[in-house]
């Protein structure tokens, strides 16, 4: 038991990232509200970033700002990649949000099922 617990604690960030990934995915899948979907995407993105950052982490490390002291620095590369990733996800989010606005203006709803129903009606099905 304690071995398992130790293992879990060792991997806690990874596990958390996986859980968040799955939750985000679940949000995207099960919710028909478009804004909710975007939130799900955000959560997924953060999960991946968390995973990335957790890779670079070193217990009792310090941020990689070189001061000349004898300390263990964490791995700086994941942070860099994540910095880029965050902005990318934000821009995607913004773009999808603007799409949602237009969808609401044209369809009168932001619910995917409703939109599908409206489209079906329009197509005469």
């Amino acid at each position: 038991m304690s071995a398992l617990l130790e293992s879990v604690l060792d991997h806690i960030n990874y596990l958390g990232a996986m859980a968040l990934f799955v939750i985000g995915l679940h949000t995207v899948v099960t919710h028909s509200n478009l804004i909710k979907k975007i939130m799900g995407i955000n959560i997924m993105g953060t999960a991946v970033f968390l995973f990335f950052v957790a890779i670079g982490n070193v217990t009792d490390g310090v941020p990689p700002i070189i001061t000349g002291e004898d300390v263990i620095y964490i791995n700086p590369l994941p942070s860099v990649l994540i910095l880029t990733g965050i902005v990318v996800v934000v821009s995607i989010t913004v773009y999808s949000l603007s799409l949602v606005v237009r969808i609401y203006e044209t369809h009168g709803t932001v619910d995917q099922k409703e939109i599908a129903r409206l489209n079906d009606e329009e197509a005469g099905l």
Partner: protein
Amino acid sequence: MMMKRVLTLVLFLSLFGLLAHNVMEMPGKFTVDAPAYNDTTQHYLDNAPSETGAINVVGAILADYRAFDTLGETIVLFTSIVAVASILKVTDKKTREESHDE
């Protein structure tokens, strides 16, 4: 309906289970022995101030070693703003009506 929801939940739980199982096999110790903490990292930490003059290694990598990534990322932002403008910018009334009608 309930059945469907439960099935979905089971699916996602199994996905999580699989992922968790896989994750547990990965190198977990957050130490310098981790595979990712290799010569690249060491080189960054040792030589970044002398090679770039920046003591914040993250900044050094961001704007020097991997500056091309950052360029790409600014372009993502640029693209997103152009895209949003192309969707949301108010055009004159006539074109809008044309495009929304039909």
